[in-house]
């Protein structure tokens, strides 16, 4: 028979009994250590975010040393510097410095008579002066080692000019893509992103909300509807690149007549295949569809049952109930969820690379059947180049992208807060 241990004597203040090693102090010490560990992991996460943001800002500003192939000063005519010359003078200059073939091609692209002075000036800079970046510094060394940088440049590149630049400028946003980092811009990419996203929304929003309404309001608990629901949950976890491969096979190849605009007789002369904005938009649409459905389902589920009862109680039909009460009350939630899904689509890169984003286009997209590039594609391409100046351009592009996403998310949060106190 087991002998019972005697009941512990009443514990005095601060003293432990013989049977128990309570050791409050030691346990609290361990508790403190772990608390610090938990806090440290949290701080590590925050540091990672800060490092990421600083790293990007660091790349987007700083000194640039560049040389001109032709010194602009040598292009002055009659003492009028290049910057002050009129459009006509600049055209004359172009004619004299460029081969006639190159000049005619430029004129054919867009007649000089139609071009603005700023445009012609840009051509002169690009085709004749040809600034070339010889070295780039990030923000931190630019701030801390300005003197050394100046000395170094003076020694290594006596003809070079040194300038502190922000890569992110109004010009950068409004200029089309160019092969030179100093004169490149993201206008093409911004427009490409917008066009693509519009088709994503047009495709995914109605189907997504429709599916959510079906699943929440109509679907009974049977095997088919369970499969649909499980399938949606699974699709939300499929890697985005798989959607890219699907888009390549389906939209680019199988549906080429549609995505290239052929069946509408609208073939863009610059594209002869389905690697278009429409194909990209639809691919991203498939990608965000499950996210939109899941978010919309949550919003619809949050509409109180009593509202539906009230509506049925006065003899409303199912659709009258859904249309007049469920959808209006779920709409803020649906929109918030859609905005979040759209910001995911805007940041997607991999599927668009697979679908076939163009590497270098400098003209604005004009229809769903145009070739496309987007902001993330631009970041990818510039980051992958070995030249430091393109990485600075990538950093500036990241800032543009992040600002866009931040304002989207902010509007989603505002929407959520504005409508969250309804019931």
């Amino acid at each position, binding site marked *: 028979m087991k002998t019972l241990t005697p009941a512990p004597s009443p514990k005095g203040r601060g003293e432990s009994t013989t049977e128990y090693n309570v050791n409050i102090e030691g346990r609290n010490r361990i508790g403190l250590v772990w608390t610090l560990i938990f806090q440290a992991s949290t701080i590590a996460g925050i540091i990672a975010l800060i490092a990421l943001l600083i790293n990007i800002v660091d790349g987007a500003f700083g000194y640039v040393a560049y040389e001109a192939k032709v010194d602009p000063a040598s292009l002055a005519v009659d003492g009028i510097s290049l910057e002050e010359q009129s459009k006509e003078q600049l055209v004359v200059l172009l004619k004299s410095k460029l081969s006639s073939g190159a000049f005619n091609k430029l004129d054919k692209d867009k007649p000089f008579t139609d071009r603005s002075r700023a445009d012609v000036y840009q051509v002169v800079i690009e085709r004749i002066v040809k600034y070339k970046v010889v070295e780039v510094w990030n923000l931190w060394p630019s701030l801390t080692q300005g003197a050394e940088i100046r000395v170094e440049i003076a020694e290594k590149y006596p003809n070079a000019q040194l300038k502190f630049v922000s890569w992110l400028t109004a010009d950068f946003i409004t200029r089309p893509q160019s092969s030179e980092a100093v004169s490149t811009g993201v206008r093409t990419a911004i427009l490409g992103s917008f066009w693509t996203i519009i088709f994503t929304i047009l495709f995914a929003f109605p189907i997504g909300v429709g599916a959510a309404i079906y699943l929440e309001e109509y679907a009974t608990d049977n095997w088919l509807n369970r499969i649909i629901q499980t399938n949606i949950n699974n699709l939300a976890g499929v890697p985005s690149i798989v959607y890219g491969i699907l888009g390549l096979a389906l939209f680019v190849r199988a549906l080429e007549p549609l995505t290239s605009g052929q069946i509408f007789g609208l073939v863009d002369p610059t594209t002869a295949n389905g690697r278009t904005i429409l194909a990209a938009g639809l691919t991203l649409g498939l990608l965000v569809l499950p996210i939109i459905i899941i978010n919309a389902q949550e919003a619809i589920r949050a509409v109180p049952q009593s509202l539906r*009862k009230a509506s049925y109680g006065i*003899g409303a039909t199912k659709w009258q109930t859904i249309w007049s009460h469920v959808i209006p009350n779920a709409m803020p939630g649906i929109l918030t969820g859609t905005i979040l899904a759209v910001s995911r689509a805007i940041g997607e890169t991999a599927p668009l690379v697979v679908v076939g984003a163009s590497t270098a286009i400098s003209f604005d997209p004009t229809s769903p059947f145009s070739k496309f590039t987007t902001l993330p594609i631009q970041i990818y391409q510039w980051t992958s180049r070995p030249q430091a100046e393109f990485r600075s351009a990538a950093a500036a592009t990241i800032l543009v992208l992040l600002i866009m996403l931040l304002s989207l998310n902010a509007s989603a949060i505002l929407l959520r807060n504005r409508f969250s106190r309804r019931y």
Partner: protein
Amino acid sequence: MTQPIPQNGTSKFVLEARSLGIYYGNFRAVIGVHLPVERNKITAIIGPSGCGKSTLLRAFNRMNELFAGTRIEGEINFEGQNLYDPSVDPVEVRYRIGMVFQKPNPFPKSIYENIAWGARIHGFKGNMDDLVESCLRQSALWDEVKDKLKQSGLALSGGQQQRLCIARALAVQPEVILMDEPASALDPIATLKIEELMQELKKNYTIVIVTHNMQQAARASDYTAMMMINDERAGTVIEFDETNRIFTNPKDKRTEDYVTGRFG
């Protein structure tokens, strides 16, 4: 308690449940209910919690099948037509037999829209402003809200919200109004107002009310049905009679225990 078989629209009974059983899946919640509902009278259903009062009430306008997925046996006749006949449209049923719920549930819309919406979906062609006013007057809410018809229905007090819900039910001009413990979420003054309102409304409508408040049933109703669960945990009507008889001279011992507070 024997009634003549009602003729279309001529019987004094608007609604009549016969051998009614209600199932949730395999669980039989209500069994063998016979219950006639007389025109322009208030019929109360009382009984302890969980005896199937609300389930029975919601069977009268086919509300159960929407949210609970119930199955039914027997029949409920409405003006001589079986509500559960396969050819009957449940939407049509709820249009004729309106409902007021336990918790006030106005739409998150303006007071005006709360009332107008139901009329509109049923193709009301008359003057909407007049209809809204008329419904609000009938539900004794007009004087309190006439200056703020554009305000949200949710801005009203609980008692006002419930009268708004009654006004909303009136706007589609039903024959019967089912009330599921309409005053249980309200304070005594608001409760009294609802009871007075019911007396006013029964001139034009037939009312069936579920209540767990015995004083309310005694004060407000003309007929009372006493429900109780049997040994198989299924609810049934054990006694139905004029209200004053139920409360003064019940035939069933269980009813007597319940109404005198000796139940349980």
